[in-house]
């Protein structure tokens, strides 16, 4: 990294942290600390919601996912706008009416203490694990690419977040997220502009999109139905809807964002703002990944994007084999050049036969390159068994480091740090408020003064932050980071959503029945995860439906038993 990159990176992060601490200095009571004094306007809420969801994983993994798999991941978000509307109509007015600090507080007034505590604990487990991954995911990639120490990188992200989150609570989280969102979107748009600019002069933007299409990357919508397909229209509209309902309606890291609104209307507008902009935002990030793919059709890509993992093989007895694969890779790339330029020329002629022939030639070479990459992965696994052989998370950052000029590298690293910090801050804030409001204040120390709970909130924020850093330090690399977070979410969200849906809409089911139903539903979801091949998005549906069905059946029998008792 060059001096200018360091100045941009440290300057950006330093400004955001200082601004967060300065702007929210003097948080003196629990209302201000956990709900930001209900002073947030809709644009702050909207940006805060988007920044909370957009973690560093979004900016590292998503372009890599598009590079490998095309645009179809965007369908995962199709259910989100519908969820925003449903939550705006039904959930927000109830939370405002009851003046709750957390979503789980509502469950006690509707059911009982044990159901509230169960939902809070499910959230704490799920979000506690996710907070560690939120820090670890960018740290492992940055430390590999930049040669930084992993523990130091984890600590840098974690400590920066702890400083302003402990100091200013919810308000600090929301105000810093506005700056972070500006850095994130500004940085990504600059990266997108640069990748298109770096295409050969003879290749226009239109040519680039057409080549991407012919190479199967512009697969934005797929209406075919397949239970095991993670990303198609149907899984997005059902599983994606359930996941979004759970995440935005019941996950305290999101609920806290809109509970800090000035009014019902401000909170609603914040959510609807997200409903309007989230899909275009994901589309842009994926499209940048596709453009990076096209860029690498004209510029030789690394044989393996995690070059540090590849270099380790050169220190082993397998070095000659790796060298041979490098040569094959280079030869195939040179061969591909002519074929890709031929495809561009064919696309301009509009001659169907010529396009099909050129496409087949490019596809043949691409398949051969894929086969070489598969051999490389096997070789890495053989030479260094502990190494991760999936390199899609390194695609985008590898491009940034190798091709972007001084200053922009620092800006893009600031994007990744900002994203990591914005998500982690919301998570720590939510973990602390749930611990204090739903567990500590409700079941441990009930009769303390305001100052005591404010201090407890600060201590729990710091404690969860420390725990997240420790978890991040000892976490091993999961198969695919963005999917790992979504899978963990899906295992718990369905059950939590089921509890809340019963609470909102099924007055017939009471506390005891819903509590047992939630435990049974969680067991069913865990069985599906460990013993079946069902795609994880369906866990949201399964967990939720299981709570509703088990709850109704149990209530029927419990109701009959109660009737017999009172007969």
């Amino acid at each position, binding site marked *: 990294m060059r001096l200018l990159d360091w100045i941009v990176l440290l300057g950006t992060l330093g400004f955001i942290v200082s601004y967060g601490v300065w702007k929210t200095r003097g948080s003196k009571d629990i209302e201000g600390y956990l709900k930001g004094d209900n002073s947030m306007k809709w644009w702050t809420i909207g940006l805060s919601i988007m920044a909370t969801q957009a973690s560093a994983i979004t900016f590292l993994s998503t372009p890599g996912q598009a590079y490998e798999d095309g*645009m179809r991941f*965007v369908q995962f978000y*199709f259910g989100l*706008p*519908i969820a*925003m*509307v449903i939550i*705006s*109509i039904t959930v927000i*007015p109830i939370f*405002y*009416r*009851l*003046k709750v600090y957390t979503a789980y507080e509502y469950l006690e007034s509707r059911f009982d203490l044990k159901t509230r505590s169960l939902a809070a604990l499910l959230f704490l487990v799920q979000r506690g694990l996710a907070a560690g991954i939120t820090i670890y995911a960018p740290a492992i990639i940055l430390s590999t690419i930049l040669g930084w120490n992993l523990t130091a990188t984890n600590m840098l992200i974690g400590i920066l977040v702890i400083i302003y989150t402990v100091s200013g609570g919810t308000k600090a989280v929301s105000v810093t997220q506005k700056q972070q969102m500006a850095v994130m979107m500004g940085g990504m748009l600059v990266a997108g502009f640069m990748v298109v600019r770096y295409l050969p002069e003879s290749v226009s933007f239109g040519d680039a*999109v*057409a080549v*991407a*299409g*012919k190479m199967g990357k*512009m*697969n*934005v*919508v*797929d*209406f075919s139905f397949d239970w095991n397909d993670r990303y198609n*229209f149907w899984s997005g509209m059902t599983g994606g809807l359930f996941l979004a309902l759970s995440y935005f309606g019941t996950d305290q890291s999101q609920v806290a964002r809109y509970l800090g609104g000035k*009014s*019902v*209307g*401000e909170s*609603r*507008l914040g959510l*609807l703002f997200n*409903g*309007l902009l989230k*899909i*275009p935002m994901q*589309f842009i990030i994926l499209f940048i990944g596709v453009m990076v793919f096209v860029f690498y059709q004209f510029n030789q890509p690394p044989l393996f994007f995690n070059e540090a993992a590849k270099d380790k093989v050169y220190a082993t007895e397998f070095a000659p084999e790796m060298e041979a694969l490098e040569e094959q890779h280079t030869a195939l790339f040179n061969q591909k050049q002519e074929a890709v330029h031929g495809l561009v020329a064919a696309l301009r002629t509009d001659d169907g036969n010529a396009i099909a022939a050129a496409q087949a030639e490019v596809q043949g070479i691409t398949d051969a390159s894929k086969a070489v990459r598969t051999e490389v992965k096997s070789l890495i696994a053989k030479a260094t068994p502990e190494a991760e052989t999936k390199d899609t998370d390194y695609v985008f950052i590898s491009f940034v480091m190798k091709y972007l000029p001084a200053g922009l590298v620092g800006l893009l690293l600031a994007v990744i740090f900002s994203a990591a910090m914005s998500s982690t801050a919301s998570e720590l804030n939510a973990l602390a408020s749930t611990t204090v409001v739903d567990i500590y204040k409700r079941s441990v120390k009930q009769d303390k003064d305001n100052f005591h709970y404010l201090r407890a909130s600060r201590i729990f924020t710091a404690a969860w932050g420390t725990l997240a850093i420790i978890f991040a330090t000892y976490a091993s690399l999961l198969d695919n980071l963005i999917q790992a977070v979504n899978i963990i979410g899906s295992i718990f969200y369905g059950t939590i959503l089921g509890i809340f849906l019963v609470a909102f809409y099924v007055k017939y089911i009471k506390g005891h029945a819903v509590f047992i139903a939630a435990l049974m539903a969680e067991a069913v979801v865990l069985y599906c995860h460990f013993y079946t091949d069902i795609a994880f998005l369906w866990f949201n549906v399964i967990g939720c439906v299981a709570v509703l069905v088990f709850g109704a059946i149990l209530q029927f029998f419990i109701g009959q038993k109660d009737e017999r008792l009172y007969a």
Partner: protein
Amino acid sequence: MKKTDSKSTEELDKPPFFKSWKSMYWLVLGNLAFLITLFYIITRIYS
């Protein structure tokens, strides 16, 4: 009492650009339908 308070607050919160919240919700859903249609056209054109 609480219920009445929040209801009156809610009524005061008129959405911007539109007369009712229902129109705002239709805007979000209409935008979704538009994006899916646009993405479908993109998929068809470039496949």
